[in-house]
């Protein structure tokens, strides 16, 4: 009876096993599903989907970069980085801008002098001694700068580049600008080339008070391609010299008083006092000369006018191969400097944006990698029940 049951059970188990295998058998023909999957992944639709994703990513990156550039541009326009970028910022203008940048007023030193001797008049808090103008923007009015009579000594410089069809005529007009009666004069002038290659340079010395009007006149002569102006505050130097001068003059007075009061002094002592008096007077004269020089420097502004023919070369043609090579080298170095400077400004100025973008990219990359790794390594099925 038991054997019969076992036989029945074995037969039933064999039947179950066979039936189960049968349930899991695929009787239909070849399906080639892998081929369909291949088409699904590499077909036109897949490319469209992928292209759309890449296109959106590229558009987002473009918007981000454009936004950064515009933001930086607005920062420059608003004066966040003055003299950093101009429309054509290279060559001699680079040098001029660098010089102007170095002319920033060191007001701290003046304050120190005030604290020590109380000799300096108060410096206006809103003193501004430089301005940069690019050709694309209207000419900025010059900041009011005090003249020597207002206890402020500023050496003013301006550079203006003009383009005209008649270089000689503009050159002649420029030469007539200085007013000899006011002590104004032409420091240097040169003109070369003909026709398209004509080029002239004039350096004018005009009184600081008249600088604005002279620049306005120059603006009317021709088309401005570039204009820069700046100033160097030398008040500290003048104050320092004045203080030392007064001191030496006091010593001179004391020595003179000594000579007149001690009439019975020995010849040796008198000679020694006179020797000292002579040294002090020499010192006074030297300082006086320096003081006068500074005064003249501050009273007369320097205006460099560069005149070119419209559409002509920016510089006169080189006279030799060596000069051409030199210019090419100089221009190359300037351009490289401009490029590196621009890259650094973009990198440093946009640092917050780059940090955010970088962090986002790292997170996205790591998520993508983790997801890929998870998809490529399927976990064992979590058995229900």
């Amino acid at each position, binding site marked *: 009876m038991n054997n019969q049951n076992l036989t029945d059970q074995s037969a039933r188990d064999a039947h179950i096993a066979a039936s189960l295998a049968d349930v899991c058998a695929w009787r239909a023909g070849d399906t*080639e599903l*892998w081929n369909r999957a291949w088409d699904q992944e590499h077909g036109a639709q897949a490319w469209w989907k992928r292209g759309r994703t890449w296109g959106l990513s590229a558009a987002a990156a473009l918007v981000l970069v454009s936004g950064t550039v515009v933001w930086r541009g607005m920062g420059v326009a608003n004066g966040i980085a003055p003299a950093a970028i101009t429309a054509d910022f290279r060559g001699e203008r680079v040098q001029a801008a660098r010089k102007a940048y170095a002319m920033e007023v060191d007001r701290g030193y003046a304050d120190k002098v005030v604290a020590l001797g109380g000799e300096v008049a108060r410096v206006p808090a809103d003193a501004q001694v430089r301005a940069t103008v690019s050709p694309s923007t209207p000419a900025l009015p010059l900041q009011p700068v005090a003249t020597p009579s207002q206890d402020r000594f500023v050496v003013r410089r301006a550079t203006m580049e003009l383009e005209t069809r008649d270089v000689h005529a503009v050159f002649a007009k420029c030469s007539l600008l200085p007013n000899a009666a006011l002590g104004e004069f032409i420091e240097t002038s040169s003109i070369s080339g003909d026709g398209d290659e004509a080029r002239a340079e004039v350096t004018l010395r005009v009184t600081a008070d008249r600088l604005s009007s002279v620049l306005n006149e120059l603006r009317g002569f021709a088309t401005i391609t570039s204009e820069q102006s700046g100033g160097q505050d030398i008040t500290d130097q003048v104050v320092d010299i004045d203080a030392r001068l007064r001191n030496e003059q006091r010593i001179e007075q004391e020595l003179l008083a000594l000579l007149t009061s001690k009439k019975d002094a020995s010849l040796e002592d008198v000679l020694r006092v006179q020797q000292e008096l002579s040294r002090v007077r020499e010192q006074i004269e030297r300082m006086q000369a320096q003081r006068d020089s500074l005064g003249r420097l501050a009273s007369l502004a320097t205006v460099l006018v560069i005149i070119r023919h419209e559409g002509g070369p920016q510089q006169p043609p080189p006279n030799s191969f060596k000069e051409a090579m030199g210019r090419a080298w100089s221009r190359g170095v300037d351009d490289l400097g401009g490029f590196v400077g621009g890259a650094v400004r973009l990198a440093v100025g946009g640092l917050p944006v780059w940090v955010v973008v970088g962090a986002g990219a790292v997170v996205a990359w790591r998520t993508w990698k983790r997801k890929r790794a998870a*998809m*490529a390594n399927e976990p064992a099925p979590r058995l229900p029940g």
Partner: protein
Amino acid sequence: MEQQAPARPVEDSRSDEELLRAFATGRHNGKEALGELARRHERELLGLACGILDGDRDGAMEVVQDAWVRVIRYGAGFRAGSSVRTWLYRVVINRCLDTRKVRSRQAASNGKLHGVPQPARTDTSSLQEALRMLTDDQRLILLLCHHRGLTHEQAADVLGIPLGTLKSRQHAAIAMLRNALANGDHP
């Protein structure tokens, strides 16, 4: 005149892992490697998916096609923590279980049997009816163990459980099935 038998395609001697690597790197004709991999496993995978999905062939084909898409997309990232065959089976089983879950949710919301494909009735329909009486866990183990594509060791590997556990669960499931068939308490 003696009739010449059709020439059998030359069998690829490369292992599954080598084929997947060849496909992922795109060398030695990557698509051919994928085709060879499919020739080895597609029928077994379809059979298993069909069994898990209660004989739904269309559903099984969809699941297996998805598995191949997965291989195409992520095959390059496959690490040899398990065999390629195990990976394929896991992908298919997990996808089948997901499909069953979705269908049971749909059935619950739309009313019993509505939306669930009815399998074609075959000579194994009584067994399929009895299989429905089992839990998903028991049914999966039975199908995997009696599936022609896998040995018991491989089935244990696919499910990530020890061989002993697999066998004991299999015995328990067979006993349940036997009882269900003997009592005929399936509809």
